[in-house]
């Protein structure tokens, strides 16, 4: 059966994302994709989807979503106090919902981005090999825009069948969940590799940078986090010719404050590159919200690569575990 969901009420910014659009940076088209790629991948694992299937990234205030048919879903990432038909449901766990169920989010408890995956994966036409929404280009994802009231999105065909689980209740949480402690622990401790222009900072500025906390300004969004913190001053003339920047690049703006470029950043930039947040810490950073504070800690390339490799290994273990559990659950039915 083809599944679909309807948006009963739109949220502030809900977009379709997959792993992102790689290979077009040289045309000025950025990668985009989810802010928290870890939560997005685990969401797909929990509902037995291919790991890069299209999901919905939800910000708070979130949408109201109607499931037109029975569905196997999960919520990962931020905790927005989700309820289905009024019943609170946990994150990081597979959930079977009955047709005509309604999902909504009442308040932001923790984190900044929540991911909804539905078994079968979202069916949206790909643009340049990706289902991610590019809001600036008005292309990709769901008609190149955020989800609005009345949108009806379809999912791929399901091969799982859970009617027995729904005999008594309209919502059934399956009895396993993913432990994310190792990924999101020490949320206010973000590691970075010093960048090309780190050395152009005055010694006092380098010290202030490492000793102090930075706070995320409310103007921050999917393009970048504007930081408020100690004044950082470059002592050399730092007018640069533009070059590529990436998700996690820490730039020094002319007002002596920092910006960290996030998923929807421009492909190129000309501000001094003070550093780069390590890829393994981008999920943590993506779950920090406006007015959260954190500390930036320098590491070397080997440490950064090691952190990413261990994260990848953990993802593989989670994937295997999810597969096994789901197979057994199907046997039970």
């Amino acid at each position, binding site marked *: 059966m083809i599944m679909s969901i309807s948006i009963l009420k739109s949220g502030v910014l809900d977009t379709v994302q997959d792993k992102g659009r*790689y*290979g*077009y*940076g*040289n*045309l*000025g*088209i950025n*990668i985009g994709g989810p802010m928290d790629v870890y939560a997005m991948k685990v969401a797909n694992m929990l509902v037995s989807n291919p790991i890069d299937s299209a999901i919905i990234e939800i910000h708070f205030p979130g949408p109201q979503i109607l499931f037109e048919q029975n569905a196997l879903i999960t919520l990962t990432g931020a905790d927005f106090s989700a309820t289905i038909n009024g019943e609170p449901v946990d994150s990081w766990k597979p959930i079977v919902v009955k047709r005509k169920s309604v999902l909504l989010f009442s308040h932001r408890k923790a984190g900044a981005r929540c991911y909804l995956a539905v078994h079968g994966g979202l069916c949206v036409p790909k*643009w*340049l090999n990706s289902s991610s929404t*590019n809001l*600036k*280009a*008005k*292309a*990709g994802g769901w008609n*190149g825009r955020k989800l609005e009231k009345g949108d009806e999105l379809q999912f791929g065909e399901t091969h799982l069948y859970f009617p027995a689980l729904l005999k008594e209740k309209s919502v059934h949480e399956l009895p396993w969940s993913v432990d994310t402690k190792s990924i999101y622990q020490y949320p206010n401790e973000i590691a970075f590799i010093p960048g090309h222009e780190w050395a152009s900072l005055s010694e006092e500025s380098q010290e202030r940078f490492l000793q102090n906390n930075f706070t995320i300004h409310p103007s921050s969004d999917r393009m970048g986090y504007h930081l408020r913190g100690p004044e950082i001053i470059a002592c050399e003339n730092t007018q640069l*010719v*533009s*070059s*590529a920047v*990436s998700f996690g690049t820490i730039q020094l703006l002319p007002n002596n404050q920092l910006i960290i470029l996030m998923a929807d950043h*421009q*492909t*190129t*930039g000309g501000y001094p590159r003070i550093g780069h947040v390590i*890829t393994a810490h981008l999920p943590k950073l993506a779950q920090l919200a406006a007015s959260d504070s954190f500390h930036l800690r320098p590491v070397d*390339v*080997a440490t950064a*690569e090691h952190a*990413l*490799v261990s994260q*990848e290994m953990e993802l593989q273990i989670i994937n295997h575990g999810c597969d096994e559990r789901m197979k057994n659950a199907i046997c039970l039915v």
Partner: protein
Amino acid sequence: MQAWIEKHAFEGLKDTIVGYSSLSILYDPVTILRKQKLKSTAYEFVKSILESSFSASLELKSDNGSEIHLPVCYDEMFAPDLASIAASKNFDREDVINIHLSRVYRVYMMGFLPGFAYMGDVDERIQLPRKDKPENVTAGSVGIANAQTGIYPLDSPGGWQIIGRTPVKLFNPQAIQPVKLKSGQFIRFHRISTAEFEEISISQMF
């Protein structure tokens, strides 16, 4: 060099981006470390590929050398900043237009927006810095910022001094090649009237 890298792509290569005087490589360290069974970091591996490919890439002939002609209408309705540039440089509007038309520009890099080409070098006599505050700019607008000239492929906020508009769609997400220009190409502008502008605009709708 970028062409060489793309031709000799290694496993784990994700994207390449050309800057004014740089080439950036996006790679997946996990894939590289798994494939190469390295003692060093993936970063060192990619760095060594780039260093050894540099001389080899010099022998690769660039196929971007062709000249591309782009029509631009400099009429007042499309050129909100032309009068102020002319005034500040003690020129007529016509002088500024002719100076802008007199050169073939090189696409140094693509960035900022999908399909935005950074071109140069603009004649010193008509160079002007960016505006202090970005304004809303219409797709197709041709701007100047210091030694650079560029065309906005989309409606967007922007700070460049706008002196004309091209009817040619430089970014079309539905096209097989969504972006018309690429870095390394040479661009020559030619002047068209408002009537010709409308004609080309309409012809592109079908």
